[in-house]
Every structure is written in structure tokens, then in C-alpha cells.
């Protein structure tokens, strides 16, 4: 394991301090907690998200005008505990209620739910949405359902825009759920990542192999296959996404997993754009970059979000955060 760190046990703490020191105009750290909140509390419905660390810039980098109000950072790839989430809820609540944006993992759902129970017990209005955009995982009544992955960033963006504009909690929740209903993602990796405390990669790949249907926690994907060209890989990922539902007018997010050079993300987008054009799917907006990462994993995910006027309005609204500005 080669990393620019001091001690695996201090990574999250030092990182959060590093973020807060770099961007005091955007965020501050809640003393004693693994939580970043807006530097200036906003008088509106608040959005809280978070999860294990290792997905930077998610979620702390997305705290700010038009997106999140608070981000809770668990240990690397481990969902944060209820008391932490509870603190975040208390810190950002302006009396107008708090929406929790949870990625669909057993641990995240349980911990955030327990926090919601604690907050409700104190009279704070809390509601939640669970993002489950990952088409790699089969959805069924009998399983935990799809994972929440890069599409979560678009939930933050669009629901955050409406919260910023003054929508009330039920309305912000409705918008968030519409994004969730319309967003699909598929990911893959060519190199794994290493959780600092574990010291070795979550899986091993040969030089000519890739892992398809990868999640964002360094875990193995849904299948392994021989490494192909970027275009073939994009075809395969888009195939899964387009088989899942109809798309006509979309936002595209080509998301890198942290170790993928920007060069390669754009090589992928070049083909994604061509394929969508050839299928008559209109690309309304494209976002390319490292937004929902897995530490230094190399690979990418493709996200499509079917848009309507309401979602377009949210997508276009001003956002001013550390890692997402428009």
C-alpha cells in the first residue's frame, strides 16, 4: 500500500481538517465530529448526506449553496454512526425540516434511519430518500435492491436547488425521488483501491482483466471480463443502462473513481456521446470528472438521468460548493 497519508487511523480526521482549512468560505467542521456543514447556515429545508469516507469530493465537497447543508463522513467505506448523523441534522436544521439523502446500503440505511428516529424524538422534522441508481445490481423484492452510486450527486444537485429556492420539505423530497426514479448508473474498474486500514486491495485483477458492475466501496463487481477497449466498455455499460428504462433527453455523468485520469474519462465520453446520438437520445448536459470516487480506484461509471423541465431547472440552478459549481 502506497499512500500520501500519515496514519490509516487519522486519514478521515486529517482530511476533514484539510478541507475545512482549505475552504473556510464554504464549510466548517463541527467540533468533535466527522461532519462538514456550510460555513453560513441557510434558512431553508436542509439536506444532509454522507456515508463512508473515500468517495471524495462526495459528500463534503458538495456542501454549499444549491446542494448539501451537511455531510457526515464515516470511516473509509463504512457508513457513519447514528449519533454522528444526528449531530449533523441538529446542526443544519433551521426549523424547516431536514432531508436525508441516503445511498442504498444496509449499513447506511440503518444508521441514517436510527439518526432520523433520534432527531424526531427531539422534535426535528426529518424525512429521507434512498438513492439506488446502480443497474449492475438486480433489483428485487427479496434483496436489498440496487446500490446508490454516482447518481447521488445529481440528487444533491437538483433537490438541493429546490431547497435553496425555498421549497418545503415534502416538495424537496418529491423532487429528490423523481431524480432517483429517473437516474441509472453502471460502473467498472481496471484497478482496485486499498482501504488504508486494510492495507491491501479489495480484489486483484490481472493485467488483461477488468471488473464490471463495480460498486464504490472497493468491493468486487458483478462480473469479471477480459479488458476491452474504451469504446467496447462504454457500449457494454450503456447497454445495461439503456436496457433498464427508456431515455430521451438526458444529463450524462461520466464519473471517475479517483485514480482515473481525466484524459480517459473524456475518451469514454467521446463514445458515450456518439452512441446516444446514434440512438436519438438528446444530451442536454454532460458532466465529466471525479465526483463519486473510491479512493484511488481506476475506472469509471456512466450515469444517465432522464430530464423533464422541472429537473432541468434544478440542474441549471446556481450551485456553489467546493467541487461543483455552476
Amino acid at each position: 500500500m502506497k499512500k500520501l497519508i500519515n496514519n490509516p487511523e487519522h486519514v478521515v480526521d486529517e482530511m476533514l481538517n484539510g478541507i475545512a482549512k482549505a475552504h473556510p468560505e464554504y464549510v466548517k467542521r463541527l467540533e468533535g465530529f466527522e461532519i462538514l456543514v456550510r460555513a453560513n447556515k441557510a434558512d431553508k429545508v436542509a439536506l444532509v448526506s454522507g456515508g463512508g469516507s473515500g468517495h471524495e469530493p462526495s459528500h463534503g465537497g458538495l456542501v454549499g449553496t444549491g446542494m448539501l447543508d451537511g455531510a457526515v463522513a464515516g470511516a473509509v467505506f463504512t457508513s457513519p454512526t447514528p449519533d454522528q448523523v444526528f449531530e449533523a441534522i441538529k446542526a443544519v436544521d433551521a426549523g424547516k425540516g431536514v432531508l436525508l439523502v441516503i445511498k442504498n446500503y444496509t449499513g447506511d440505511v440503518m444508521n441514517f434511519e436510527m439518526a432520523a428516529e433520534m432527531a424526531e424524538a427531539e422534535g426535528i422534522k426529518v424525512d429521507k430518500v434512498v438513492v439506488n441508481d446502480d443497474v449492475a445490481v438486480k433489483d428485487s423484492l427479496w434483496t436489498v435492491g440496487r446500490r446508490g452510486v454516482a447518481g447521488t450527486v445529481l440528487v444533491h444537485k437538483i433537490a438541493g436547488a429546490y431547497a435553496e429556492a425555498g421549497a418545503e420539505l415534502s416538495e424537496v423530497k418529491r423532487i429528490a425521488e423523481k431524480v432517483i426514479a429517473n437516474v441509472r448508473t453502471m460502473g467498472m474498474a481496471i484497478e482496485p483501491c486499498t482501504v488504508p486500514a486494510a492495507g491491501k486491495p479489495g480484489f486483484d485483477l490481472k493485467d488483461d482483466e477488468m471488473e464490471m458492475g463495480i460498486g464504490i466501496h472497493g468491493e468486487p463487481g458483478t462480473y469479471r471480463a477480459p479488458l476491452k477497449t474504451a469504446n467496447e466498455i462504454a457500449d457494454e455499460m450503456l447497454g445495461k443502462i439503456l436496457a433498464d428504462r427508456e431515455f430521451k433527453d438526458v444529463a450524462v455523468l461520466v464519473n471517475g473513481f479517483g485514480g482515473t485520469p481525466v484524459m480517459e474519462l473524456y475518451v469514454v465520453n467521446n463514445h458515450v456521446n456518439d452512441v446516444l446520438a446514434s440512438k436519438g437520445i438528446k444530451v442536454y448536459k454532460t458532466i465529466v470528472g471525479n465526483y463519486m470516487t473510491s479512493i484511488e480506484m481506476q475506472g469509471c461509471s456512466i450515469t444517465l438521468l432522464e430530464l423533464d423541465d422541472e429537473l432541468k431547472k434544478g440542474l441549471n440552478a446556481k450551485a456553489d460548493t467546493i467541487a461543483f459549481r455552476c
Partner: protein
Amino acid sequence: MITKATVIAVIKDIAARIDKDWQYLTELDQVIGDGDHGINMHRGFTAVLQKLPEDRDIGAILKSVGMTLVSTVGGAAGPLYGTAFMKMGVKLAGKEEITREELLEAFDEAVAGIKQRGHAVRGEKTILDALEPALDVLKAGGSWDEAVKAAEDGIEYTKTIIATKGRASYLGERSIGHQDPGATSVTLMLKACADAAK
């Protein structure tokens, strides 16, 4: 009767066993999960030892263990084990010593808490596949050693099934052949109980 001293000794023994085996638990979780189960449990039980209110009653001690686990473990295991210990604590509130029957009733509460929190049933490749068979043996009058044997059989059983709850479920058929980390950690706890019963 099971004394408070025994309960405290078991909790300390669980912590010691996790301290010894956390890397193994993490390795199991790397294969079909995200490789943090041992790390999380180790962080949790290290905190449990630090915060153990040894001068309080059994119920308060178990509740404290549960709350510490909830607030330090994170992931899926934190709320699940945390809920289990808290439910036992509520059931055994105020007791300085308990009977075997009271213990088994508390275990029943623990299992119910895990099921309620995790929406899982037996056969989904989780903690429950080791814990429930062990509890069944005890409730049928079996010995602690027999209960541990049932839990170990449960671990073996988890190798044969597809996970439908927890992170391993994302692997689908690829989860077959590998044992469940949570079933393994709960068996380790049962072993501590069995040793104390000797």
C-alpha cells in the same frame, strides 16, 4: 445463576477474541463485502472496553455495550449488534444476576431486534444464520458447546447460499462458496459465552 462478573468477563473475552481475529474477519469481508467488518468490530469493542460501566447492573452494562457499538462501529454491523445488545439490556434492566431462562429471553429479544432493524430472515447469509440455530439449540435444552456447534454449522451453511441481504447480495451467485463475516463474528461471541459456561 449467571453473575454480573460472568457477564463482564464474557464481554471482555469477546473483545479479546475480536482483537485476535479482526484481520481474519476483514479478510472474509474483502471477499464478499467491502473489507471492513473486522476493522469496524475492533474499533467498536475497543471502545466498549473503555466505556464499560462495571459498577452498574447487567441490564445497564449490556445497554451501554449496545450504545457504544451503535456509536462506534458504523456500517451494517453497528446498528445490528448495537440493537441486539441494547434490547438485551432493556430486558435485563436492574438485574445483578440472571437465570439461564432470563438470558435466553434476552437472546430472543436480541434476535428480534436484529430482524427488525435488518429486515432479514434466516437463509439470507447473515448473522442470523449462525445466531438463530444456536439459540434454538439452547432453547431446546442443549449445551453451550452444542450451540456453538450449531453456529459453526450455520457458518458452513452460509457458504452454500446466495446472499440476499447486506453487501454480499450485490455479488449474486459469486457469493456462493464464501462464508459470511457476520455469521463468523457472532459465532466468536457465542464461543466466549460457551467458555464462560464451563
